[in-house]
């Protein structure tokens, strides 16, 4: 389970000073739940998730993953998290099998259980046809599957997928969503970020809409639609974005 409280992150830019990328973000995510993070590019989704994966240090607030603090116990957090994003590529000069094995070893799994688990994963994700293929020769779909295998090799309780379907064809994207749904039935805590409203609507139990580094709304999709009186998630999204822009415009005018 994931708890995020007032999380903020600013970057120092010598021309603009401290630029906030994420500001005062709070949410919770339970086991057996897919939590959707919806927002346009540059809204702060990846920065938020990178802080949860301990790669970036928050400049304010706190976050715990599976009971461990991301700042004070980063190693324990990383052991219990499966993280996949546009930034986590796979090695060109390693085969699918070698790559998953390598990360399995870094997670401290002994070779016997590791290979057993890898056989299961390769079977489940139908990766046996390219298990000895080098990363450089794989198609985008194959690479994505290897990334998923890498993400779940240590059977983590928490999984974070940052825009996993972007750039995939419909077939692969669909099977990937299927995998994520399967993982939900195994009682994993899952965060799924996307800028595709329909996808989020279909997959997620609860969503957070993020824009300009701030959370605009959090809740079940149906409840949110009701609350703001919008027909679908897309309308809701643009409604909230307009609202946020208006507010920031007014504050700038003042």
């Amino acid at each position, binding site marked *: 389970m994931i708890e995020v409280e007032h999380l903020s992150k600013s970057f120092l830019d010598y021309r603009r000073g401290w630029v906030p990328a994420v500001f005062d973000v709070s949410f919770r995510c339970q086991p057996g739940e897919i939590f959707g993070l919806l927002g346009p590019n540059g809204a702060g989704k990846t920065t938020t998730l990178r802080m949860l994966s301990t790669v970036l240090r928050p400049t304010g607030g706190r976050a715990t993953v599976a009971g461990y603090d991301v700042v004070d116990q980063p190693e324990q957090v990383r052991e219990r998290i499966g993280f996949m994003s546009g930034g986590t590529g796979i090695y060109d000069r390693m085969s699918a099998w070698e790559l998953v094995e390598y990360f399995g070893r*870094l997670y401290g799994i002994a070779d016997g259980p590791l290979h057993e688990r890898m056989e299961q994963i390769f079977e489940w994700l139908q990766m046996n046809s390219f298990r000895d293929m080098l990363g450089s020769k794989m198609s985008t779909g194959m690479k994505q599957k290897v990334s998923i295998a890498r993400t779940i090799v240590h059977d983590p309780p928490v999984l974070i997928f940052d825009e996993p379907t972007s750039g995939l064809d419909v077939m692969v994207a669909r099977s990937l969503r299927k995998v994520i749904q399967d993982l939900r039935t195994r009682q994993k805590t899952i965060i799924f970020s996307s800028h595709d409203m329909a996808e989020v609507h279909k997959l997620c139990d609860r969503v957070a809409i993020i824009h300009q580094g701030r959370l605009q709304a959090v809740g079940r999709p149906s409840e949110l639609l009701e609350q703001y009186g919008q027909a679908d998630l897309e309308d809701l999204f643009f409604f909230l974005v307009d609202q946020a822009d208006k507010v920031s415009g007014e504050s700038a005018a003042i």
Partner: protein
Amino acid sequence: MRWKNVRTIFKRELKDQLRDRRTIFMVFVFPVLLYPIMGLSLGQLATAFQAKARKVVVVGAEFLPERQEHAGEGASSETVPLLTPEGKTFDPRLFDSLTEALLLEVECVPAKPPWTDAAERRTLLREGRADAVVLIPADLAGSLDAMDRTEIPIAYNSASEPSQLTEQRVARVLDRWKERIVEVRRVREGKPEGYDEPVRSTAEDVATRTEMGNSTWARIFPFLLVIMSLTGAFYPAVDLCAGEKERGTMETVLISPATRTEIVMGKFLTVMAASMATALLNLLSMGVTGFGLAVQAVGGLGDGMKSRGAALLQAPSLESLFWIALLLVPLAAFFSALCLALAVLARSMKEGQYYMTPLYLVALPLVMYSVMPGVELTVFTSLLPITGVSLLLKTLMLGDYATARRFFLPVFVPLVLCGLLSLRWAIDQFKSESVLFRESERFDVRAWLRHTVTHKLSRPSPAQALLCFVLMLVAAWFISMSAGFDVMALVAMHVGAILGVPLLLAFLLTSDPAGTLRLRPARTRYLLLGLILPITLFPQVCELRVLVEWLFPTPDILKQATGALEKMLSSAWLAWLVLAALPSISEEVAFRGFIFSGLERSYRPVWVIVISALMFGFMHVLLSLFAQLFNATLLGLILGLLAYRSRSLFPGILFHLVNNSLSLLVGIMAANPAFEGLSRILFRDKARLMFQPVWVALGAVLSACLILVLAKKRPAECMAASGRPE
């Protein structure tokens, strides 16, 4: 750090590198192919170059005695010919072999323009019509008969290398011709052999064949070893850091449970393996090629040259090779850590390549310096990271193990320290998110400067601390260049450079200059320690100074300079002001003030103390004597500890002041006969300021206790220290 993770990462990176065609080519294929091909083409080139005959125009050959129909009657039978009768070459008897004679092609022309005209001759030489022109004077035969001295000018063009070589060969031919003429005269007049050559020097070479061989290799191997281990480290380092960023796998590793230190160590070991493999393979390939070439070359020489030639290329001894391999380890480690730290900075492979140029620009002169003739291992050269290793290798290959043993530690320790510091830097880089997730941005100097001055932090950064150190050295150098070596220069250096630079930077770059320079009151306990510790330490300081002086004697020039300075400091008060009071303030402000605060912002206390002490020692080497390095560094460690514990500048100033004052005071006292009685109680060797064993022992025990007291953690103060402003 878990070694299991380091091993897993190392194995993967190694496998990855071995699958990279470019690495394989650079590390394995390139050296194995390069040298044989180079050797082959060099051989071809040499033969082509050698076979080319040079053209000599002999102007006025008709004036040569051998060509005069009415040569002096008495001399005709003994005339020594300069040219062959056909006039196409010089007489072969004037050369060592016929082949050599054929390399100078002669064209005889009558003494008429254009060749007799100086201006036209110059044009003809420039046009390459001749490589050298010999002008035979018209009265040559006559003056030879009269035993006058005649000059035979050789015209050549020194701007052209072939012409220059030809001139040298022709001059040698004329020399031999002269010797033979003299010989004929000697025999004719019945003089003994020593008549014209009373003394002849003969050279006797005592070097054995192995030594001769070693000296050849000693010139080439260290150079190649250094350059190749750098080259071997660079490419994999860029691939492992910038390459990972570029291919988007860096974040994948960062989110694994491996810590940053483990990741860096795994990568570091990979780069080091590549560096060592490159260096060793290059040496091996070059050695084999060189040996092959030598055997070939020796085959073409005369018998006398054969053994000498073979000796020159005798393979280096196993012992030398063992030493090479041993020294390669810290060298490769140093380069690997340095390349890794630089490569992390780069966002892409392309950017990584840019960093190669400055690295080579620094490394190459350091290596080149070591292969310059006459450069030997001294304290100074041994402490330069790259030069020292290169020179030590040279010394070892020459079989001078006594020198090598003496300088082993001065070379080894700085190298290992530099390696550790670079590794530490690399790990820090890996922990910095601004380095790992760097995005390209527009760099604007004005905006950056404005930002630096307006967004001041309360403490300087480590980079600014380093900047302060470098600026201090540069400023001190300029002041010493313009002011020379006298009292005023010394004062100017301390005030202008060592005190001025940190003060200026503290006001310019930080929002809290007083805090940065640690100008806060200290507890009485630390002030007392600052007062007493230098006194108890003093006998050891003196012992160490004598030991260092014995190990690395001060050059005479420096001794004279120091003596002259002492004479200039006529009054004891002036000496105290310039040599004790001023330095203790300026050096503390710089090293325990600005630099210490800067380092403290991102390093652990142990590293802050070690790095600031090393900088302190290094500055003493550059600004005064090599021998001060050890004393200054050791005192720097204690001063650092004192500064860290007291969190104030003042105990350090007091310590420094007492220490420097004692040096002066004891020197004056030992020289003054009035204190004869006291001196006898204190010293066992008054001239060298060595204390009685009892004082040395007592001082050592007391100092050890005091340092222990100082080093021991107190819970209350640790709390205070951890609350230091970020």
